[in-house]
């Protein structure tokens, strides 16, 4: 019976590693479960952090799994008659297994700081301000292309239009465009989005951009990315926001600058529709 248990517990590291290897190699039965394609120029650093931590925990996971198996196998009561010996522990061992993880955690904390700053603090700038030096306090941050407002259970998109201002008071430049669940962005350009919530906590998640930002009612948040591939991708809500959370999804379309401008102009024209003739449809 003893050999059975040790072999059973050996399955834990075997299946655990197998799941990752099969998923990463995109092989049946867990194909299509690895990370979605990264289409963000700034997304690679998130992926390398993920892989680094995965390898680190992977090595420790495999080592722990094999050690557990070896102890079960070696000291199986049916085969191993020698009585158990008790010890008061090993000071050296305890120091090693406390300091080693602490050092690793500290290393990760420092190693990721730049990635965090790039993703959350160093918003792209429109100009470097009066002093002409980028990275100083007087930089003019890039204004958002659109305001994305989470609402149970949809994403409302409010484009600021060519004047880059929301709700501009000047009537001649009232060019804002309002859409639901359809976010179009130009490819190969820095895009800044302002994220807000109308009701409860949501989380604005662009899996292909490696961007996830909690949306807190009453707070203004900004996310930015530079897409490097055209196509349509998912926008999902990554924070349980109510019973309809699972259906709170939108569509992200990345397209060329010309197509994007044409699309935005079309949306604007439709929003300005001032006549209706039956038979033309809506």
């Amino acid at each position, binding site marked *: 019976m003893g050999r059975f248990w040790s072999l059973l517990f050996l399955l834990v590291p075997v299946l655990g590693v197998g799941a990752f290897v099969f998923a990463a190699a995109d092989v049946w039965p867990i194909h299509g479960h690895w990370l979605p394609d990264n289409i963000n120029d700034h997304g690679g650093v998130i992926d390398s952090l993920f892989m680094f931590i995965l390898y680190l925990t992977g090595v420790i996971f495999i080592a722990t799994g094999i050690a557990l198996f070896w102890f079960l196998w070696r000291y199986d009561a049916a085969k191993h008659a020698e009585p158990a010996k008790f010890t008061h522990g090993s000071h050296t061992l305890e120091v090693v297994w406390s300091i080693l993880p602490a050092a690793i955690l500290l290393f990760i904390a420092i190693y990721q700081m730049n990635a965090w700053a790039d993703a959350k*603090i160093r*918003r792209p700038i429109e100009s470097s301000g009066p002093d002409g030096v980028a*990275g*100083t*306090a007087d930089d003019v*941050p890039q204004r958002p292309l659109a305001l994305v407002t989470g*609402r*149970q*259970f*949809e994403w*409302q998109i409010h484009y600021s239009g060519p004047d880059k201002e929301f*709700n*501009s*008071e000047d*009537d*001649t430049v*009232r060019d804002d465009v*309002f859409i*639901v*669940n*359809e976010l179009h962005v130009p490819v190969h350009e820095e895009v800044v989005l302002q994220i807000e919530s109308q009701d409860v906590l949501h989380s604005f998640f662009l899996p292909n951009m490696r961007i996830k930002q909690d949306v807190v009612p009453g*707070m*203004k*948040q*900004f996310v930015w990315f530079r897409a490097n591939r055209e196509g349509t991708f998912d926008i999902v809500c990554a924070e349980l926001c109510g*019973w*309809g959370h699972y*259906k*709170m*999804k*939108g*569509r992200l379309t990345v397209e060329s600058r010309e197509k994007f401008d044409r699309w935005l102009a079309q949306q604007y024209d*439709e*929003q*300005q*529709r*001032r*006549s*209706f*003739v*039956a038979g033309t*449809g*809506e």
Partner: protein
Amino acid sequence: MNMTTFSSGTRRLSLLASVLCVAALLTGCESPDARFRGNMVAIRANFGDKYRTQDQHVKDIADVLAAMFGTPDEPHVPKLPDLNTAEVLDIDKLRMAAGPVGSDEFDRPRGLYRQHCAHCHGISGDGAGPTAAFLNPYPRDYRLGKFKFKSTPIGYKPTHDDLKKILIDGIPGTAMPSFALLDNDEIDALVHYVKYLSIRGEVERDLIRYAATLDLEAEPPERIVNVAYAKEKPSDFAEQLEEVQRSAARLVTQWQNARSNVMEVAPPSRDMNDPQARVAAIRHGRELFYGAVANCFSCHGDTALGDGKVSYDDWVKDPGWIDGSTNQPIAAQIPEFLALGALEPQVLRPRNLRLGMYRGGRRPIDMYWRIRNGIEGTPMPAAAFKPEGAPEDMKGLTHDDIWDVVEYLRSLPYESISLPAPQELENLRERS
């Protein structure tokens, strides 16, 4: 001895446990069968205090409706001679929307209504699903056959495209979300199903009104239709069957005609893209807003904040529990109606026009329709329209007057008092 009893006891206990487990697996956690709920509120409203003794009518109405429209799992399109019902109610589309959530053997979706709509709008389309009571405004009750946001005037059904637009855009400011990402035929299926529930609900109301003219106490009792018996001898119920068919045919025709009742709209004479023309339009629109003819401010308030008269909409008024003299629901009747499935009466506030939140759509054409046609089921009236060539002294808004009011309303959210106070960037950190 003790040992044996103990172990056989344990064995019996574990046997019992496994039997219970298997039983639980077999019965599963399926919800009870979906059923259409009778419109008890309308029964109470039509029969008054006598409604408790109308069980026969309630049963007969349910039987007639089941024969005509089927069940939530197996919808039927009523057979109406001389009418192309498929245009309004396409059975394939209805099957896609009806039934439990899942997909058929060709992997096409099924049960879309229950997946996306029923929790608010209810299995019967009564606007009283499980989540309805928590919402303000309440979800639409389709059974009155009235819809607010449409291109047709009050009294006419909305077009297929009107309902589709609501599904695609959602209704900002309410709990109705956008379903823009559903496939086009899924949205079509849901629109057909909404029409189906609406027609079924209106036929039910017609039947209830008709039943109120019959006397169950008479000898023999006057029944609507004894469905079991009518199949064998339809001639005995010819009059009643005709009544039912007429009601359904009238409704299907109304929905069919919606398209030809659309209000066509010509563009304004002013070029609104010209800043000066727009400023003139806004100024004139403002005069009209506060003028005696349009009289918008009497409900929408002196500052257009929607703080004028509150009232109730037709869906809340439907049970007939509003006292004409006080214009308030009769308190004593509320618990009784609530027990029959009505929702707590909810007051209707005129729209705050400074929010830039337009429930029926933010395009100028949508706002034109709201003003020109009014909003069905609410106190928002159609504008007194002054056609071209009308006598000079006729009171009313001309086509261009309405466009000017639209332009004024569109400018309101951009006035400085409408805009939120500038907000500090709370998560932006200063770096030196």
